[in-house]
């Protein structure tokens, strides 16, 4: 093997990589938060029994889940300015990631909503809650707990999806890596390090998910 490894490129440019990693983490968390809100509303529409709301949510899910994410990103960043909506690379990245994660989480949360027994809903109605309040107070919390593992799987995919946004020059971790690579050609050292940094970011996200589980889903361990 002729190649001599030189990781000094990493040490010399670690600040650049860290700022890319920070943007990746920030975009991920914002997109997941907004996307989860979309997913909860989408699951409400999907289970509402109203054909119009169900149709809207279903069309959204179908379009997003059956088209490439890269095209969705390009459409929002390059396409929407034609309608007068110009977003920064970072804004377009977060918006497109949230819309993408929202479609997947709509279907995951819907499965959770459908796992809640009719008796729970009737108990809420019998107390005097309106349907929407039953959904918010009685259906959604255990529904999210029931599908939490599936949701976290999708969350991790959403974090990894963020590497695509380097294509519109959002300065995320992948962008920082590409930038360094084009200047130093230390591809092995750079992409090896970047892969480890993605791993670290996913671990951070998983740790947050675990803390949320401990805080909000304590009850789940007592269910039969």
């Amino acid at each position, binding site marked *: 093997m002729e190649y001599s490894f030189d990781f000094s490129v990493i040490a010399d440019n670690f600040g650049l990589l860290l700022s890319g990693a920070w943007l990746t983490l920030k975009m991920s968390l914002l997109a997941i938060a907004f996307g989860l809100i979309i997913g909860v509303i989408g699951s409400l529409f999907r289970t509402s029994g109203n054909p119009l709301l169900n149709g809207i949510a279903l069309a959204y899910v179908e379009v997003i889940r059956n088209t490439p994410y890269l095209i969705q990103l390009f459409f929002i960043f390059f396409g929407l300015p034609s309608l007068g909506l110009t977003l920064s690379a970072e804004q377009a990245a977060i918006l497109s990631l949230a819309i993408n994660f929202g479609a997947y989480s709509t279907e995951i949360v819907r499965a959770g909503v459908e796992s809640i*027994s009719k*008796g*729970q809903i*009737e*108990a*809420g*109605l*019998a*107390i*005097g*809650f*309106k349907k929407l*309040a039953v959904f918010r*107070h*009685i259906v959604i*919390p*255990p529904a999210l*707990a029931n599908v939490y593992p599936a949701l976290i799987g999708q969350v991790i995919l959403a974090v990894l999806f963020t590497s695509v946004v380097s294509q519109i020059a959002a300065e995320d971790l992948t962008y920082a890596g590409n930038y360094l690579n084009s200047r130093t050609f230390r591809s092995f050292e750079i992409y090896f390090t970047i892969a480890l940094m993605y791993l670290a970011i996913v671990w951070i996200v998983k740790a947050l998910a675990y803390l949320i589980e401990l805080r909000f*889903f*304590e*009850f789940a361990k*007592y*269910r*039969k």
Partner: protein
Amino acid sequence: MTYSQPETNAATVARDPEAIIIAKGVHKRYDNDFHVLKGISLTVNKGEVVVLMGPSGSGKSTLIRTFNGLEPYQEGKIEIDGTEISHNQKGIELIRREVGMVFQQFNLFPHLTILKNVTLGPIHLKGLSQDDAEAQAMELLERVGIAPQANKYPGQLSGGQQQRVAIARALAMEPKVMLFDEPTSALDPEMVREVLDVMRKLAQSGMTMVCVTHEVGFAREVADRIIFLAEGELVTDTTPDKFFNNPEEERIKQFLSQILH
């Protein structure tokens, strides 16, 4: 609270004749055309304990569920304390606050502690502060004997305990009527008594109750009236003494011979 009237012997007290539930000619058909209620008319007065009995499929659970609008019906009229329940009506939730319901499967909210199961309605629907709602809930949990478990989750309680919490949760809304839909049918035999004891005390406190149950001892002792349904029709509306000791109808004799073994 509305139900804490002076303690009296429920069987002998003179009843307030004011009607709280009035059903007139109630018909219900399911989508597949099964005619489950065939023109039921009855009246429940304030303070009365009425037990609905009948073979399975007779429509008794369906009937009790029409009294808080969980089950829509196609013909007839149901009034709760002077307000008509019609189908998909706006404001049905206001009537439901006045009508507590206890289900066969308890239906406690698994993600909330026992205390929060009881305070959820009062906090969000009656605007009680958390402190006031918790004080009220602890008083109710004390009454049903579950106060020590207030901070546990439903999954940590036995069926009988869960059902007693369900009763406390319904009472927290201070309803005018309590509906019990086979409250002991899903319980292990040794837990039936603890639930019936709570229901008995509630009846003695003057609460208006409509109960679907097969518990003969409870019906004999606590009910003011037994209403017997069969195949969607009201067969008889009579006193427990007459119902159990001198039934006239053949269908009732047959039913009693089955449940009394």
